[in-house]
């Protein structure tokens, strides 16, 4: 709304001048024209009602179209592994990743069927040649696209050797005990979550 404001204001001040020259002089004009070039149904209906103002850009006009799926299966999987505060792997080409989906450990190879998988707390392994890196993922999602790009997003993911086994054992004992003594549904759920997370960390450290 305010993007148009300067143009509308300058237009009312100098209404003799055509708006196009004002657009060129504007300090923060967008590099693309405000009206989408192809006449989408939205742009058409806008023009019918308000012909003298350019139609605003819609979110879809900012998006890149989905890239076409290559007909041959690529040899490598491109992985984007991101966390809210950092991107651990960005467009890394690997041979395979194994993600801890709620339905079990899921191996993803190039050419995998497009999938959206919710992740449970567990270990994600990235296989590149003979290197294997393991990350413990707290929970998140894995999106596998048709063009062999996998986006794994998690709130917290740490390399497995950053986990301290004493703290894990203590936490597991504590939450198992809480599970036994929990009364309300919410407490039970929290204790169950604790048991799930800590036992997953435990098996990550020992397995």
């Amino acid at each position: 709304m305010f993007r148009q404001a300067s143009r509308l204001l300058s237009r009312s001040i100098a209404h003799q001048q055509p708006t196009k020259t004002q657009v060129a002089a504007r300090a923060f004009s967008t590099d693309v024209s405000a009206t989408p070039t192809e006449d989408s149904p939205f742009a058409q209906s806008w023009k019918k009602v308000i012909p003298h103002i350019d139609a605003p850009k819609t979110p879809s006009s900012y998006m890149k179209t989905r890239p076409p799926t290559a007909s041959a299966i690529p040899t490598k999987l491109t992985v984007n592994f991101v966390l809210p505060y950092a991107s651990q792997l960005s467009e890394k080409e690997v041979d395979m990743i194994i993600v801890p989906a709620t339905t079990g450990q899921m191996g993803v190879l190039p050419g995998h069927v497009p999938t959206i998988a919710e992740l449970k707390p567990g270990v994600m392994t990235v296989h590149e040649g003979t290197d294997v890196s393991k990350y413990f993922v707290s929970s998140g999602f894995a999106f596998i696209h048709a063009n062999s790009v996998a986006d794994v997003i998690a709130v917290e993911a740490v390399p497995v050797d950053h986990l301290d086994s004493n703290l894990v054992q203590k936490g597991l004992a504590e939450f198992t005990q809480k599970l036994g003594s929990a009364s309300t549904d919410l407490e039970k759920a929290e204790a169950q979550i604790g048991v799930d997370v800590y036992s997953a960390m435990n098996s990550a450290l020992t397995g």
Partner: protein
Amino acid sequence: MASAGAAGPFWRAAGMTYVSYSNKCASMVRNCLKEPHRSEALDREKVHFSISKWIDGKPEKPLIREGTGGD
């Protein structure tokens, strides 16, 4: 596969949202890190916000909350 009409995951049945579930899992993982990483990670959890309730069009004194995670 989940059965049709399943109540969903146990935390959903207990009234928790996915976001709170995910944040709880993340904070449990952070609590188990080895030392230098642990303090960096717990810094990430800190929240600082101030809430003011509005009554009759006027804000009350704001409640300022700061600290690690939790509700």
